[in-house]
């Protein structure tokens, strides 16, 4: 799909818009490292500017931390200067906040440019406490190294109100510097429609209906 997306965007004047692609046997991550490497290279060759990888949750939960680290490092190597690396932790499968924190640090040390909560296939996804923990990790990493890593909550953010709460979390935890798409993005689909409906209410003064917003 990456070439199609790239071709279409270039055609309608969106040459500067980056394309993000999932790779590494998304969403389960259950394939050999060799396959994951090819998957990643493929996406980059097709024009992806950003790669969304998933961590190996089986390895993480069974204690093979170095394996998780190594996989991220290798994928980052392939991305090189051509693509940013987003590392999806799949926090719903990690379950505890301690695990989310640990996985966040691991991903950052291994080279993640962004840490992301979920694939969107598992609930619970980007709850406020999980996002808070990741923002704390990112903040502490910045204090230690001076490097700013981005955070992307994805999944479960359906309303504009939810989104605003997330933005407040970012401002109060990592800080105002993170309130930019380079460092914070929300992964959502239904959210856009709610945002449009809220915009309609602000403009017209009365409550809007989903019938007046298209689904794609």
């Amino acid at each position, binding site marked *: 799909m990456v070439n199609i997306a790239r071709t279409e965007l270039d055609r309608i004047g969106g040459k500067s818009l980056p394309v993000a692609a999932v790779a590494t046997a998304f969403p389960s991550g259950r394939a050999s490292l060799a396959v994951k490497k090819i998957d990643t290279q493929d996406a980059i060759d097709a024009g992806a500017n950003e790669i969304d990888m998933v961590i190996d949750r089986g390895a993480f939960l069974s204690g093979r931390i170095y394996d998780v680290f190594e996989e991220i490092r290798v994928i980052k190597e392939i991305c090189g200067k051509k693509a940013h690396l987003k590392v999806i932790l799949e926090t719903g499968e990690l379950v505890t906040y301690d695990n989310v924190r640990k996985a966040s640090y691991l991903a950052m040390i291994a080279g993640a440019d962004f840490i992301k909560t979920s694939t969107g296939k598992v609930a619970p996804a980007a709850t406020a406490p999980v996002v808070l923990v990741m923002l*704390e990790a990112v903040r502490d990493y910045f*204090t230690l190294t001076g490097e700013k890593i981005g955070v992307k909550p994805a999944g479960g953010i359906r309303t504009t109100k939810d989104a605003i709460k997330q*933005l407040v979390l970012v*401002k*109060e935890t990592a800080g*105002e510097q993170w*309130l930019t798409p380079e460092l914070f993005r929300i992964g959502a689909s239904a959210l856009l429609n709610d945002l449009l409906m809220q915009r309609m209410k602000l403009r017209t003064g009365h409550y809007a209906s989903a019938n007046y917003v298209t689904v794609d």
Partner: protein
Amino acid sequence: MSDFEYANAPESKAIANIAPNYGLFIGGKFVDPKKGKSFSTINPATEELLSKVGYGDKSDIDAAVRSARAAYTKIWSKMPAKERGKYLYRIARIMQERAREFAVVETLDNGKPIRESRDTDIPLAAAHFFYHAGWADKLEYAGFGSKPKPLGVVGQIIPWNFPLLMLAWKIAPALAAGNTVVLKPAETTPLTALLFAEVCQQAGLPDGVVNIVTGDGITGAALVNHPDINKVAFTGSTEVGKAIARSISATKKSATLELGGKAANLVFEDAAIDEAVEGIINGIFFNQGHVCCAGSRLIIQENVADEVLEKLKKRMSLIRVGDPMDKNTDLGAINSKEQLNKIEEISKTGDAEGANRWSPDVKLPTKGFWYPPTIFTGVTQSHRIAREEIFGPVLSVLTFRTPSEAIEKANNTMYGLSAGIWSDKGAKVLWAAKQLKAGVIWSNTFNKFDPASPFGGYKESGWGREGGRHGLAGYLASEAKVNK
């Protein structure tokens, strides 16, 4: 200047129907004080006048006690326990119905943020009535004998820091146990008590079961010294608590006292640091630090002290100080000029005695009484700011190297109300909880209250407990003790 500034979120005052004057609530009605005197209550955030309330003197106290005694003898002591309970349930439900009104009045009269009144004070107050309503007809199972008896008429004096909540802590158990009450609210915060009187009327509570006499320290003394009360319940300063203990020493009156504190909040090296920082903030800045159990001494293990302090200061910079009626506000107004003076006086000794003061840059409003969130580092045990209760948003920070040293410093005080422990190691938490001489121990949390949880202090933090099964003891005649 950022793109993401918060808008104001003002709560409307409209729901608060504060009358220009209030009388005293005696015998089920609002009556004028016998000498016709009144005094003002203001909004400490704006210094605006809210209302003029009746000033109760000795003769008014006498009328109230007589009314309470008559109600006890003729009605309340004869009423079946389950009916008593039903009155308390009614009161709880009406408080819940009028919760928003209570929250707004409380914030206007006290200066605390509306978020606190709305989310903490008022719900807990209603919960206290609900909890104790359930005890009224189950006292024989409470562990105080098979036929526990009330004491009779109780005189109750409450402070200004949690006006409605302190009223609930006093009146709910007293009534559940079968006593009648005369309650004297704090001088600067009478309004929610008077609103509560209206609730008693709406609940159809028999006349004289609850009497509320507004006034000052002299009014309180008249109540303590009235010959026909059986018990005194007091929450306030240790100094006044001792004075009360002396006043009643030659009488048959019993007393429960909830007095001051200088709680240690211990952060061990293996604490979850971000959580601990939230707990420290809550411990000292919740309710502007006007809390007897405030975590006013932070004692950090030396090897994590820098990290904790750095995070603490960053977090303090996010505290929003200002209009208590704004739902975004974290830190509200200091309750009175008098209290502000006290905070300033003791804090200045921190500077004078060599501690290092730090506050984030906050713009304080020009009218009203305000103090910025403040910490002092480099504090030692002998500093006044480490020993005396400041009762304001001022935190004294000390350090320790070994766990025994932490305990020694924490216990080195004549107070013993509460303490906090931050550590992720279970055995250590339980060990510290055992060593600490405090009546309420919060491990990996702080400032949690519940009607089912007994609250009270060791040493000079007071006598007895409030809340839970243990709190009933103060309102029932003892099986084993005698009053000569």
